[in-house]
Each structure stands twice: as structure tokens, then as C-alpha cells.
């Protein structure tokens, strides 16, 4: 999931749609994020490549909307509602997720297991 500067990033992603839950005055999603281009990537326990400054899901609150939408801990968020999350600061990412006017966020996330699944499926069905 690392990138080479100048080259397009490719990843196998899953679409996840989370309906925000209203709690009093706040809309919550029920997960926590970590990372960002202003953060130290070496401290990210989920990233494969320790120079990856992307946004990762660090915790999913059980019973929350994120868990219901099958967001998993360790997922890397690539897009939020069409906004790119691979090259943003931590606060920018948080803001894109917590916009007051939006009831739903559509994420594109990637995880290691997805890549593996795709690879496996490709192996099983070799192209002619």
C-alpha cells in the first residue's frame, strides 16, 4: 500500500457506506482514525509500509455505525465521499468525516486481506 512518488496509486478497495448516528447534537460514526501527512508514520501499527502517511482506522467502536457497515480496524481510508484521503493532514481527514450537513459517508477503504483475496482469485482462475 505504499506509493512511489509520481506513479499512480492502485489499490483494491471496498466501498463502505456508513450512516451517521445522531447523538444529541453530534453525529458520530463510531470509529477512530490515525495518521496523516503531518503525523509520524513510524508509529502507525497498522501500516505495512512504515512510511505510509495515509489515514487508517485505529479503532471501531463495537455496536456503532462503522461496525455495522463492516469497517474494520486497520483499514486504510482512501476516499471519503469522493475526497481523497491518501494525502491529507490528520485534521483535514477528520473534518471530511465529520461534516455536519452530511448524514452518510461513503468510504473507499483498502486492506491487506482484500489484496490477498484478489490475488488468490486470480491464481485460481488463470487468464488464458
Amino acid at each position, binding site marked *: 500500500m505504499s506509493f512511489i512518488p509520481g506513479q499512480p496509486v492502485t489499490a483494491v478497495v471496498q466501498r463502505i457506506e456508513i450512516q451517521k448516528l445522531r447523538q444529541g447534537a453530534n453525529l458520530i460514526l463510531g470509529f477512530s482514525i490515525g495518521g496523516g501527512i503531518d503525523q509520524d508514520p513510524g*508509529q502507525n501499527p497498522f501500516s505495512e509500509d512504515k512510511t505510509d502517511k495515509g489515514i487508517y482506522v485505529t*479503532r471501531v467502536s463495537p455496536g456503532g455505525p462503522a461496525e455495522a457497515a463492516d469497517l474494520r480496524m486497520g483499514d486504510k481510508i482512501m476516499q471519503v465521499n469522493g475526497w481523497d484521503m491518501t494525502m491529507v493532514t490528520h485534521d483535514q481527514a477528520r473534518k471530511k468525516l465529520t461534516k455536519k450537513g452530511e448524514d452518510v459517508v461513503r468510504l473507499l477503504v483498502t486492506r491487506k486481506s482484500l489484496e490477498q483475496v484478489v490475488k488468490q482469485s486470480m491464481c485460481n482462475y488463470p487468464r488464458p
Partner: protein
Amino acid sequence: MFCRNQTARATVARGSALEMEIRRGKFRKSVFLDTSQDSDIQKKIDHEIRMRDGACKLLAACSQRDQALEAAKSLQTCSTRIMAYMSELQRMKEAQVMQNIPRRSSDAGPMDGRLPCKGKVAISDLRIPLMWKDTEYFKNKGELHRCAVFCLLQLGGEIFDTDMVIVDRTLTDICFDNTIIFSEASPGFQLRVELYSCCSEDDYSAGSTPRKLASKLSSSLGRSAGKKLRAAMEPGPCSPVSNGGAAPLLLPVPSVPGPKYHLLAHTTLSLSHVQDSFRTHDLTISGNEECSYWLPLYGSVCCRLAAQPHCMTQQMMSGCLKVKQCGGDRQSWTKVYAVLKGASLSCYHRQEDVEANVEPAFTIGINKETRIRASEKDPHSKVQNICISNQYGGEEVTHTLTADSREDTHRWMEAFWQHFYDMSQWKQCCDDVMKIELPSPRKPAPLTPKQGSLYHEMVIESSDNLSTVSDILARRMQELELRSQLGTSSPWMSVFEENSTKSAGFRHQCTSHLSGHSPCTPHRLTRSPMSPHRCPQLGLLSSDASLTSDSDSHCSTSPCSHHHGWPEPSSNFSLSSSSPSRLRPRTLSLDAKLSTLRGRGYGGGGTFQCSCQPPPSSLLAPLPISSCSPRSQRSTQTTLSCSSSTSSNSSSNSEGSHSPESSEGAPFSRPSPARRSLRNLRARLDPRNWLQSQV
């Protein structure tokens, strides 16, 4: 034939019995000469040779790069010292030979044979700016080009070296913190400053690789690597001939494998460069870019060169004098004890006042403008008077002094003349006494973390601002955290298996400790068992399907429990939080204090979150805990983890993690937006906090 400044003096009469004995070789003539100087130098040379042998052995034996560099540095210093002593010995022998030749009076030394007084010269705060190319600075690939550098300072016969500094492209200046003091320097001194550097990259074992192999290697490797290798292996055109050329007296320098220093730059400082403040001087750079030991020097060196001539700091002359009163009758004289030092003649009532540091009765200024002359013989006393005239403002003030005897008068005049001569020789140093700081006993260098980013050295001035101090503490704890070793299995972990009653009891015990701001040892003891306590509980945490993880993650937001945020099943990871026991006691009690203050500050908040930044007293209070009482087991975990981690830590991480506060079912409330943004800012400024935000 007799020179005043020659201390070694002995003539043997021709045809005397002594001469016969000398001829027969029974006695050496040198026995009768003052050979103390000779033997001094000889002793020094022997000492340095022994040091050098030791350094060679050490160099051959040591395996680590740092040790090798240090040993090579001492080798270089010893070699230079040996060379200096040898040349001085040579000079002295030549002088002795010259002395035996009868001299004409015109060959005598400087006029009047007067020598200026010696002085102390100190050079400190050497700083050599570097000028890295921006390409060099920003390139991320490849290893850092590092050099080990040190300065060699030579004045007269004294040679000192500074500490060794490793320089790479993250440094903008080479700074040497040492203060070097040369004690006996004449005003015409030449202080030679030499910068030696040695490439400190991979193990290119220097010197012993045969040329053919070297050229083969360098041609087969890539261009830049080969160039470096070649430069490291053969000194080539870059290094000067450091072995002293053709001096016959010199012993051959043993060639030792290992790092070798080369002269990179040098300059010579003299009296004209002396000033009480920092000055910049030019450097002459030897070597070019092709050399392995090359560093892009800006071309100048800044330093503080101060000089204290002895005439300014020591008593040049002292004795009893009689001073004529300015007013009143002409015959009244005041007996004083006068001391000539620095730019004044201090007159004390009694001799004892000098030692007692009592203020002198009066002081007569002696400076460049003072005029001293001996007046005509006083008809009454047959002793010449000494008149000292000074210009104060527009008017001229004259003091008249008399000594007790003619010899005294003569000696005082002599002293005054010598003083004037010294001042004329030392020039600007005599305007005011320059401050020379004695080098203090070396404090061990503070341990710097491996990552050398500027943030890590940034110190936020701690005011009464709680959050700042707590941040600093959090950072310190995190630092310790990251340095701790994983996998320390503690035997007392078994004590803290799932028993909640036990843990509750333990909680009381530890909180009672905390609340008392007790001496740190019990605090620490309670802490260490607590942290691994969390570890077995982690298993419970992750399996617990309720809101435990939420609350826990809020409260146990210390860097120790940083890892709680990612409740990894692997115990290795969680065990790393056992380090708080290593904290210094001072931090702990400060943390405890902070926690009380913070608890008080947040008292009005009344949120679960706030209560988890425990003032120890609030832990005992039923109200805040009652909010987590339905999850009593977890509450003990939380309290424990909170009390084991300090509130300071939790605050710093809570800044990030709590900023967009949200909760599932528990009565959380957001802290005020202003406080939150301030904490956010600070959390964001500290790159060591890997921020997590809840959305």
C-alpha cells in the same frame, strides 16, 4: 656576553681541573648547566610517546567506530605534541650552542632587555559554519556522509585538542564547546587553530590495502563509491605530509590501521584578534571535494579569543610608600601600602587590608595616558619623588609619592616602566580585564533520542500553564516508553489475575499513596505492578463486548496505554507499557501534583472523561466513579490504568483523541471548544503523539 634573560649559565675556565674531567668524559657539561628545562621537555616527550603507544594499541584493539575515532584523535594529538616538543628541544639545543659563542653587545636582545609580561590566553566557543549544497541536504537516498572532526590548538609549546564532534548534513555549524586556556603566552603569540577531520562512514580500513587492490576495487565499484573508497584507502593528494618531513630528530610515526585524521583547515590567531566578544576569522582550507574527509566549510571560524595579561591580574609591585597630601601643608605625608595591579595603583592603609579585601584608601589610575616622572631630589630627604600625573576630564591631577630609600624608588620606577611596557605590548587587553571562564568539570552529555528532529530538542517554557507542563511530561514518558524493552515478563503478574476485589483493594492502596504525594519509592512500587496488571486485563478488554473499550480508551490514554488504542491480542505489544516504573521520582510526584491540580480544574466538568484524569482524591470520591460503577470491573481497570498513567499523559493524548468527542451511550460531554482547540494545537505540534481522532 652575559644576556639577562639567559637562565642557563655556566662557564668552565680553560685548563681547569673541571675541564680536564669533562674532557675525560667523567662529567657531562650539561650537568652543570641548568638542565631543568631540558629534562622537563624530555619528560614531556617521554610521556607523550607513552601516550601515543597506548593510543596505537587502543586503536589496534578497538572494534567500535567511536572508540577508534577517539583513539585516532588522541594519536594525532600526541604526535603533534611530540613534534612540538622535539622542535623546542632542538631550538633549545641550538640556543645553547649559540650561547657558547661569545656575543657582541649589538647582538643583545630587545632594547633594554625588557620583556613584556606573560598572560593567559583563552579561546572558547569555537564555531565553524558549514555550507551544505541543497542537493546534499535534501537527498534521502544513501547514507549520511559523516565526518568526525576536532580542533587542535597550539600556542607556544602547549597543544590542546577539543572534543570530537560527528558532523553530518543535519548540522549547520560545527560547534566546540570547550574552553582552552593557555597559561603562559607572550603578547606576540601565534595561536594556531587546526581542524582535523576523518570520514566516518563505512569500514574502509585505511592504509593497509595494497595499491593494486585499491585500484581494482575502485574501478570495479560504482563511480562515487569507488571514488570514496579510493580516497579513503590511499591518502593521495588530499592530505598533507603530516609526518614532519625531514626532521632528523623525529621518530617515525607508526602507521596504524584505523581511521586517520587529515588536516581540513587551519588559521593563525594573534594579539590583534583578541577581543572580549565573538569575532569571525578566516580559515585556510586544505583539501578539496574529492577527499573523503571533505566538509563544505563556509570558510570562517567564529570564536571568542580573550587574553588576560599578568599585569592586569597579578600584583606587579607592592610596597610601602608615602603619599603627599594634596591640600594642606606641603610636608604632610601619608603612609600607605601600595599595590600596582591592572590599570591602577591601589593604596591601602595597611598591608593587611589587601588580603582582607578591604577597599583601598584611594586609587591612582595608571593607564596609557599617565605620565610618571621622578622629580628632583628633595633637599630634605635626599630621595627622589615620584610624580604621577593623570588627566581627569580637562584637568591634570598629580600625586606625589616617595619611597623609603633610593633603591625602593628605583624599584618602583622600574616597576612603572615595566608596567607601561607591558601595556604597550598587550595593547587592547589592558583596557579592561577580559573575563575568562574556567572550564567547569564536564557534565555528561545529555542523552539525545535517536531521531534527531528539531522538535525533540524543543523546550516549551513552562509557565503555570498546566497543559504545557503536562505535555512535556507526557513526552518524557513516551520517550521512556518507546525505549523500554518488550517482553519483560514480571513474576508478579500472576498476582493480578482477574480478581476484581483484589484490584479494588489495590486501587485503594495505590490511590492512598498517590494522594499523599508520598515519597516516590512507594509510588513507583505501586506503579510497576500496576502496568502489567493492565496486560492480562487487555484480554478481557477486547473480549468484552460492552462499552469497556471506549471508556478505557478515553481514560487510559497515556502513552503507556497508547497501545490500548489498538488492543492487540499479542501480549508482547501490551507488555511494552510496563515501563513507567522507570520514571524518575521527580516526575512522578510532579505528575501526582498535576493530577490534583487538573482534577481541581476539571472538577466542574463532571464528565466521565475528566474523572478519569485522576486527582487521586477524586478516585476515592464515589460520584465520578459511580458513572462507571455498572462496569465495576472495568472501572477498576480504568482507575488503575488512569492512576498508573498520569493525568498529564492522558491529557496530551486526550487532546487528540478526544477532540471530536463522541460516545456511544455513555454520558460524555465535550470539553469547551477553546480548550479543545488549544490542546489540539499542542497535540498536533508534537509529532511524537500519533494522533487519533474519533469520528
